């Protein structure tokens, strides 16, 4: 069975993200904007921005 990559839209930047055989709660990263996402639905493939502890980046 050829693994079909499902695609869904990044909620942050709208980029199309393809995942083979996605799982609910699976964590992934949007390549275009680097946001960490959590799979919240398989059919259709939907993501939510995963809560991460604030990263200190500023000057």
């Amino acid at each position, binding site marked *: 069975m050829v693994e079909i990559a499902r695609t869904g839209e990044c909620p*942050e*930047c*709208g*980029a199309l993200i393809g995942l083979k055989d996605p799982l609910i709660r699976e964590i992934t990263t949007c390549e*275009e*904007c*680097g*946001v*960490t996402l959590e799979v919240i639905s398989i059919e259709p493939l939907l993501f939510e921005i995963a809560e991460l502890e604030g*990263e200190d*980046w500023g000057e």
Partner: protein
Amino acid sequence: MTIEVTIIGGSGYIGGELLRLLLIHPEVTVKSVTSRRLMGTSVTMVHPNLRKFTSLKFQGKPDLDCDVVFTALPHKASFKIVPELLENGLKVIDLSADYRLDAERYAAWYIEHPQPDLLEKAVYGLPELNREKIKNATIVACPGCMATAGILALYPLNDLGEDILIEAKIGSSAAGAKVSESGHHPERCNTVRAYAPVGHRHQAEIEMIIGRKVKFSAIAIDMVRGILATAYIKTGTKIDQKEVWKQYREQYKNEPFIRLIKMKTGLYRYPDPKVLIGSNFCDVGFEIGKEILVAFGALDNMVKGGSGQATQNMNIMFGLEETTGLLYPGLHPA
């Protein structure tokens, strides 16, 4: 297909960078490089990075038995030569400001243009916006380095409104090889110098291309190569982020030298010339505030803002794959 090239005005930094790119360009042979001041001197005396890459000497007269001439002269010097080159049936790629603006703007910023007919024929050499015209051009006027960064940052955006401020932070190589008080190392190092807070001529180019008034300011910072243009657009309302992403993607999705940078993590979240040194990329990005949209354009002023863009135009004019001899990653760290 070998393109025979002559460079008129090869002793400066832009001339040197043209040589760096063209000497290793797979489809190019550099036939002659001129410099009246350094006639007879080896090119490598002024461009020591090119040792072992060329034994060319600066000539007083250009060898016009070639396919294309790059003119890298101080402003207003091109007027004396370009007409003759075109009459000889040569293609000309000019890196000065002499043929960039339309007649009306040129008169507003300088004086009446001395060669209006030529100005008419000249194509503004920004491939991402003018590719088709550049293909058939006989004279291409390469854009200013800061104008390139500002235009590429703003161009895709639809609702720009009327309140746009662009500030370009720029490195010392953009001031050229000629020594000066302002370029003297003890004075230039660690400076944050507002050398053109108003009235810089690149403003005219940006206004011409994006079709509205802008405020433009240039600040020299402690860097040799690089520009970051930050454009502050008053939007009045909070714009939808995905909509802005869409506008940039639509405009630049097939562009080999534009990268969209707006990241949530990592050290380089927005465009930054630090990772573009020596490369022909322009990194474009943005951020959204309550009543403001900030757009970014970063590039190496000597490559995408100068000799690289000129080479990109040459590739287009001669029907080559546009990235030929230009697909180099920036150095990091450098």
